[in-house]
């Protein structure tokens, strides 16, 4: 990535060395070297120690809780995200601008604020919690509560990845299907949905990845009971507070590897979407 690799004959613009040098140096100091510390720190553990930490029942339970709640939250966002994106792209209705802005709110709102607000609503004496209580449905301090917090956090991901694809969607394909006698619902399943699939999966993976790591919005509503509502990031936090850095690092390493795999998958899918758009 040195300046010499740039085809100078093709580019008369200055500043490659400076901007590239600064980018690499900054990224290394702030992101790459500190992250590498996690890998270095775990090499201080023997394989057996590492394995013992990450297969501890409490740790396994925290991974399971993080994964299942993130999965169901991302699944909910997949369905409603598609619906919201569809409505925003295809229809005109009063208040559309406000609805569109609301989609971005979870990006802009601090997670701790979302956490206490959702807990107030879904606690047994809250607006929704008090309605659900007589039905025997407890939300706050259960895994359902965690899922609801993660749905809030994940809303923008599916909507904002599907929206541009739907906007550029070639209506002629859709029309051709209708000309050939397909019903509307069949057109949707057979023509529209397959085209949207890469974007939907990307949005799902983004929401899922965010959900696994999420901390601020979850800790208030979850109740944090070990084995039942304790998520993996919270367990890392607990270990750090007890100065058990080895334990925290081992749990974090597993999460980092999963996040990196998800990031690679997401980038691969986005690359495929881009290639498809360019090919068109």
């Amino acid at each position, binding site marked *: 990535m040195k300046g010499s690799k740039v085809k100078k004959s093709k580019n008369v613009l200055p500043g490659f060395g400076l901007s590239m040098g600064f980018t690499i140096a900054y990224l290394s100091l702030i992101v790459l070297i500190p992250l590498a510390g996690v890998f270095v720190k775990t090499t201080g553990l023997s394989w057996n120690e590492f394995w013992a930490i990450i297969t501890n029942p409490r740790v396994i339970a925290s991974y399971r809780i993080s994964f299942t709640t993130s999965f169901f939250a991302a699944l909910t966002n997949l369905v409603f995200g598609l619906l919201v994106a569809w409505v925003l792209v295809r229809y005109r209705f009063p208040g559309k601008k406000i609805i569109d802005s609301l989609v971005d709110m979870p990006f802009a709102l601090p997670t701790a604020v979302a956490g206490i607000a959702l807990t107030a609503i879904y606690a047994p004496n809250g607006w929704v919690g008090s309605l659900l209580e007589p039905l025997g449905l407890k939300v706050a301090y259960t895994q359902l509560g965690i899922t609801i917090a993660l749905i809030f956090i994940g809303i923008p991901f599916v909507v904002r990845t599907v929206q541009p694809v739907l906007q550029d969607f070639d209506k002629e394909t859709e029309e051709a299907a209708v000309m050939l006698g397909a019903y509307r619902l069949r057109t949707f399943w057979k023509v529209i949905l397959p085209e949207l699939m890469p974007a939907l999966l990307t949005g799902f993976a983004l929401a899922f990845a965010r959900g696994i790591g999420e901390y601020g919005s979850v800790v208030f509503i979850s109740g944090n009971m070990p084995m039942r509502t304790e998520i993996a990031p919270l367990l890392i936090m607990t270990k750090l507070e007890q100065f058990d850095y080895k334990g925290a*690092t081992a749990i974090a390493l597993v999460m980092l590897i999963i996040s990196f795999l998800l*990031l690679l998958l997401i980038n691969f899918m986005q690359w495929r979407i881009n290639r498809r758009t360019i090919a068109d």
Partner: protein
Amino acid sequence: MAGAVTAHLSQEASKRPKHITESAGVKWVLISIAILFLGLAVAMPLVSVFIEAFKKGFDVYKAAITDPDALSALRLTLLVALIAVPLNAVFGIAAAWAISKFRFKGKNLLITLIDLPFAVSPVISGMIYILLFGAQGFLGPWLDKHDIQIVFALPGIVLATIFVTVPFVARELIPLMQAQGVQEEEAAASLGAKGWQIFWRVTLPNIKWGLLYGIILSNARAMGEFGAVSVVSGHIRGETNTLPLHIEILYNEYQFSASFAVASLLVMLAVLTLLVKALFEWKTNQRASQEKLD
């Protein structure tokens, strides 16, 4: 989405043959579900913050946000954002310049690395600095000998905040500058403009709205970051507490109204952020339609 077609179609839909679009009934059902979903999931929590904040009256609200600890948390939050956001803005401009104006190997890898902080849990983002600079950390003994404190102090909070906001400005600028290409800059260079002249006179005016939007987004995240800052702050009241941490402390002490009062300040910040976003999109559309006219 059903096969049934009725005559009541919207203005937009009526431009297309009737049987290609959904019936008005289906359309309004879908719109209602979307509004209901976002209303329940997003609008209701926002409204509840203000209602909880004013539950015990305006005096309690005022006392909560003028409390010395709240004010010192506000000052720290502003200071941290004031350091972290400009640094990341400079990084974002440099990265976007290198990526969008030049061709080199490993460009996709570099973009992925810039995105990395998005994929890392906030708790881990804070933890990595404890591993580096904490008492048991790699540099801990050395820092201790020289009496430099990084974690559980301002530098640690700033570092963790920078980490979580690294991608924002770069992510906004890279696609924008890639779409704009290099023609204008090359024209300026061939007319004899120097590097910084090209940047200030040609590039910056072209990217100013995108840059502003990236800055405002990273500012919102910097002021609202909770997990990463929570790990490195040490929670010393009046010293290393930021606004989100202050909210947590008040909440855990069952001072709910005070907690929501401070939270309402951050909700207003979020609303302001989204207003700037709307302004940015309006400006971009205006520019696009102007170019069409030209």
